[in-house]
């Protein structure tokens, strides 16, 4: 697909999604659309680093939680408007990304080691937020209810929809831009063969730093949105493993390193969990079991995700290959 066609498709798809608040009047249905967009944002954030950059993170909660706690703490402890908190939260998450990136990439951590260290960083943040007072420690933070647009607390779901629509659209446009840029080419080169990329003069450290900061920024935005949408946070929600898992599951199912993968993945996952709720009921753990099964199946049989599957069915060229050189174990 040519890049102009991709941009056009992106605009059309988000235009169609933008019809949702017009067509859907039921709050519970609109909520599903909102949560799907939010998951797509989180997944796209992960996709920048993990899909395009090949750096599999197990700790994206570190950025999500930082964004969420930043906006919440600024409001509750300092009375600062959440719209300012939105910008600060995104930047704070990017800064956390820069810190983690510096610590890991500087010392050449790759592959599974990188994944485990990111998980450890998220755990450190979880314990810290569980222990210090200004984050409300284990009790968490309740953002006081004051419904108004100026307060980033909307009375209607439709207004929340537009906020997450804009955020997610921005993330997807950014990724489209990356896919078209020198930076993007360098990033995928580092993913496919870091040593070869460096031999050709790519500054792998700088490229990966750029990716982790962008990735952190958008995950932080997702965190800010979460905080304002639900108005409650605790260390487990903000920095727990569930967020880290969701953010990697979405692009892996949808298709890592593809522009539309995270949207496909998010829609598929949320559709599936709604379906399982309708069929099996609200039994604890059921939809998560399905998520786990999906993760195993995708990695085993569909390593290029739904996007890869679709382009394969159309007879197109595979977008990226996550399956590397082929000398694996067993």
């Amino acid at each position, binding site marked *: 697909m040519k890049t102009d066609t991709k941009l056009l498709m992106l605009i059309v798809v988000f235009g169609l999604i933008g019809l949702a608040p017009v067509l859907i009047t039921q709050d519970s249905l609109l909520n599903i659309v909102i949560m799907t967009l939010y998951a797509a944002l989180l997944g796209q954030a992960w996709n920048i680093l993990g899909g395009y950059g090949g750096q599999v993170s197990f700790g994206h909660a570190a950025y999500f939680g930082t964004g969420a706690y930043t906006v919440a703490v600024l409001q509750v402890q300092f009375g600062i408007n959440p719209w300012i908190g939105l910008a600060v939260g995104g930047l704070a998450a990017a800064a956390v990304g820069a810190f983690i990136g510096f610590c890991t990439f500087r010392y050449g951590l790759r592959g*599974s*080691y990188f994944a485990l260290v990111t998980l450890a960083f998220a*755990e450190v943040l979880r314990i810290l937020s569980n222990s210090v007072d200004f984050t409300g420690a284990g009790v968490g933070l309740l953002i006081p209810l004051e419904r108004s647009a100026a307060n980033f607390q909307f009375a209607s779901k439709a207004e929340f929809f537009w906020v997450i629509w804009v955020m997610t659209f921005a993330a997807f446009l950014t990724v489209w831009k990356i896919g078209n840029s020198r930076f993007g080419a360098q990033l995928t080169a580092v993913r496919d063969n870091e040593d070869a990329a460096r031999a050709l003069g790519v500054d792998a450290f700088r490229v990966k730093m750029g990716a982790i900061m962008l990735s952190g920024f958008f995950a932080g935005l997702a965190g800010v949105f979460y905080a304002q949408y639900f108005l409650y946070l605790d260390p487990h929600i903000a920095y727990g*493993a569930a967020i880290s898992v969701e953010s990697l599951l979405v692009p892996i199912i949808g298709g890592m390193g593809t522009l539309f993968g995270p949207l496909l993945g998010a829609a598929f996952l949320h559709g599936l969990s709604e379906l399982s709720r309708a069929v099996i009921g609200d039994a604890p*753990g059921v939809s998560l079991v399905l998520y*786990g099964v999906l993760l195993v199946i995708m*990695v085993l049989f569909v390593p290029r995700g739904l996007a890869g599957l679709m382009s394969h069915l159309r007879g197109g060229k595979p977008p990226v290959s996550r*399956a590397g050189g082929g000398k694996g*174990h*067993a």
Partner: protein
Amino acid sequence: MPDSAIIIPSVLNGLTTGGLYALVALGLTLIYGVLHIINFAHGALLMLGLYAVYFLNAQFGIDPYVSLLIVPPAMFALGYGLQRGIIGRASHGRDENILLVTLGLSIIIENLSLFFFRSDTRTVDTPYSFDVVEIFGAFLPYPKVVAFIGALVTSALLWLLMSRTDLGRAIRALAKERKGAQLVGINADHVFAMSFGLGVACLGVAACLLLPSYYVNPQVGGGFVLIAFTIVVLGGMGSFVGALIGGLIIGVVEALGGLFLGESLGQIGIFLIFILVLIFRPTGLFGAKA
């Protein structure tokens, strides 16, 4: 500053907890050393083992220590099957894929347990659960002392297995030079699955020794995963002595961290060690150079 009357018991207590951690880490380091698989489902498999011990006790009145004859062999079979059926097929040439598949497995196992066993926390009631042993003026729980000795014995057995048996030689040959080992007739798939099975069987041993002083619920494994990884990384991936000593160090760090920083913040030391070791000395204390 607490005086030595508090610090010494705390250190001893940390050492016994560290023995438990070492037991959990032994299986992980065996799996890593041979297969270079970072098994993220390790905690979830431990939790399954704990439930097995629990139900054997609750349904049939079998003492957890007697379960040592039942649970580790069952866990071995489970591990063998998992490696041959699922994990061994997942890599596609990238280690991260195995990490992702084992993450998927752990999600499945944990949530199936949540579905079937509910989230209640359960403990076993044995006559010796609350017995104590006095060592150097410190009173240590009897089950923890047993587990500590169990960790020593298990690592010695593993060492013997690796150095003295044909299976051990085959495992080491595969870890060093896969193609060469296959050329001399070693069935790689089988031996890989045997190693994975052995690693999971170690969890069975850990479960039997752990439950009398611990508890089980569907989330219990999660807390062990990063701790076990930390121990393995600290001791050096694939090193049994490293896992043992790493476990003891982590146990003491946790105990002292809890003493000086409080229960909640105390655990942070473990993760900081993990990050620092991976950054500055990824081969660990006893690991071979990568």
